[in-house]
């Protein structure tokens, strides 16, 4: 039986206590993986719906009329880089290197804010072009899918910003790097979902 010493300190800074876990993975890390598995089905349903309703809208505007691929490409790049930045931040946290942690984590949070801002700009631009939420099936399935992704980015940014606040206060030592690791896992997942959304929603729609 593999036993591992897990630090279940949690956010509250309780003294580290050795807990026996049956699998060589901490409870909170296992839980975030399980949650991500569940989220896969959530986004799979949203993406499937978008694909099922492709070309089914009764009136415009349609994707090809309205998508701003260069802007979204920039947002995609920023989000992809943020996944790299959070890995560097986690590395800093695990080494107990506060400066490294704060630098890279700040960059990650900045990327999250940039991406969310890009989406706010994109949505308001579309709205002014006449694409309301209930305009057609494309708009409804597009806004629901990317809106929920955006909400996940916002929540992830908020989560990482909270950890940044902890790091600045010196409350994120190497012993509590797990706090950042699980947030980073979530952040990578949100990123991976976008890696699917970008080609499936934006690039594939340009030809139709």
């Amino acid at each position, binding site marked *: 039986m593999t036993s591992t010493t897990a630090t279940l300190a949690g956010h509250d*800074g*309780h003294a580290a206590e050795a807990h026996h*876990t049956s699998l060589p993975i901490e409870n909170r890390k*296992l839980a975030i993986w399980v949650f991500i598995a*569940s989220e896969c089905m959530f986004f799979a349903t949203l993406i499937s719906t978008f694909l099922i309703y492709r070309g089914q809208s009764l009136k415009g505007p349609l994707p090809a009329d309205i998508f701003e691929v260069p802007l979204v490409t920039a947002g995609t790049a920023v989000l992809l880089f943020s996944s790299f930045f959070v890995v560097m931040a986690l590395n800093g946290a695990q080494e107990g290197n506060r400066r490294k942690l704060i630098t890279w984590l700040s960059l990650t949070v900045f990327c999250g804010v940039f991406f969310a801002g890009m989406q706010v700009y994109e949505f308001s631009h579309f709205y002014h072009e006449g694409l309301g939420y*209930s305009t057609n*099936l494309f708009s*409804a399935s597009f806004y629901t899918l990317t809106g929920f992704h955006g909400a996940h980015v916002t929540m992830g940014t908020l989560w990482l910003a909270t950890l940044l606040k902890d790091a600045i206060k010196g409350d994120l030592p190497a012993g509590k790097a797990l706090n950042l690791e699980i947030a980073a896992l979530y952040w990578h997942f949100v990123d991976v979902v976008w890696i699917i959304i970008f080609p499936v929603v934006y690039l594939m729609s340009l030809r139709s």
Partner: protein
Amino acid sequence: MATTVLDPAHAGTRSRSVLVEWLTTVDHKKIGIMYGASAFVFFLIGGLEALLIRAQLAGPNKDLISPEFYNQLFTMHGTTMIFLAVMPLSAMFFNFFIPLQIGARDVAFPRLNAMSLWVFLLGGIFLNASFIWGAPNGGWFGYAPLSGRQYSPGVNMDFWVIGLQILGIASLAAGVNFFTTILNMRARGMTLMRMPMFTWSTLVTQVLVLLSFPVITVALIYLMVDRVFGTGFFVPAAGGDPMLWQHLFWVFGHPEVYILILPAFGIISEILPVFSRKPLFGYSAMVFSMAFIAFLGFGVWSHHMFSTGMGPLADSFFSLATMLIAIPTGVKIFNWIGTIWGGSIQLRTPMYFALGFIAMFIMGGLSGVMHSVAPADLQQTDSYFVVAHFHYVLFGGSIFAITAGAYYWWPKMFGRMLDEGIGKAHFWLMLTGFNLTFFPMHFAGLLGMPRRIYTYPGGLGFDTYNLLATVGAFVLAVSILVFMWNVVRTWRRPADAPADPWGGATLEWAIPSPPQEWNFTEEPVVSGKDELWTLKRAAGVRTLPEPARSDGRGIHLPGPSWWPLIVAIGILLFMVGFMLPRPWAFPFGPVGLVGFVITLVGIFKWAYEPPDAHATPH
């Protein structure tokens, strides 16, 4: 995680009222009892709805109930029994017994566990409060476009759409929690293939919850935005496809029926070996057949949709996949019979219900296989034959098993044995009432009586069947009263149940009844399946000596917390915001916004809760 060090020296320094204790508890046993108590109340409400339905259908052309109210009754009966009775009654057993069976002191995330309870309870109250304004009336499956704004203009279906989303949050949180708990909190030595079968069934059920609930969540979001913001996901006039609703609903809905029945399989697999004095026959086959049922459960959803005209290819695929499920289910039934075979059978009340389960579930399973044949299903679908079928699996299956579990585990939960004589009277009344209610429905259905009709003309050949069903329903109601009488009677007696009244095989029987707050004074180490039987055999005794109660000195337990309840209230307000009229609605109005802020603040406070904020010395 906030923790409390139990220190009897400080006993009574701060006494908290009983109410505050239960509102802030993170103890899985108290949470389990609250799940059970609230689910039982919802079960009674759902039963009352059923009685009203049966009274209306007792004879032809009755006008006891208006057609509008009848629609609300059958919708709320189905929704209540599935989401507010059977699921949380199973959750009662998950909560109380999973940590005990795997030798843990609590679940992986005790506060998240409390939040699941409160979200469920508030969601259930919210759904039932709808009767004041007009309860959901579009069926428990909420078929679009009937459930859309055009055909359901009132608040009725808003309650349903939002209520189910709230309940989904509770189920998903519990799914993450119990999956993590079972995989990671097992006692030393308890490998996966040494876990009790109820623990296995819980694990597999959580996988189903985790992978199927997100799908219904998205479907409900679409239906909600169709209703609130005027999108056209399921509106044919806007190009939307109502078939998408059916597919998404049943991608969830079929795994959901296994979510309702797998815990029952687990309970039965615990009871049969104990009362046959024989280990479960074919343990590994039982585990793998359950996993196979869960896997296939995701590939059969369209057998609920044969009548929609999907074409021969899809019909054939879903027919065959459905028939395939009969194989692992058959494996389980034969293994249960193999367990009893040659055993030294003790006919106690839990065993009565367990044997009743096998017989009733086989009948429900057989009519289920009949539905898998698409051409035959076209004749049966939407008739009372289907009503008979799923009541045989959900009542004859789930409810019989949950009742068996209640009699079996009652002494462990409350330290009191339920009365055997009354228990057996309960069983015979329930078995009689159940078959009297649902067996005639097969015939009524085959004679052409459709589901969901508030009355029927006489002389079509099913008057007598309906009268029998109504009589049976009231016999069933009496059997539930007998159970309640048993509980009340038992309550007046001293709590003197031994730790191991049945000669159990699993760890929950190694500790006092009821268990102390920390469950195990010493964390157990497990050396094989049926650990307790191994210990007894090694000691050469029938029952182990009564375990001593300890003072729990030095044991760390998570401290109580208000935040789970507060977050649950926030989630409720946030969701309710979507159905309020414009000036109040989210994002245009305050209620949803307040809920959102409460939720967010609650989560932050929860995450940063200092270790001893609410430490209660014992």
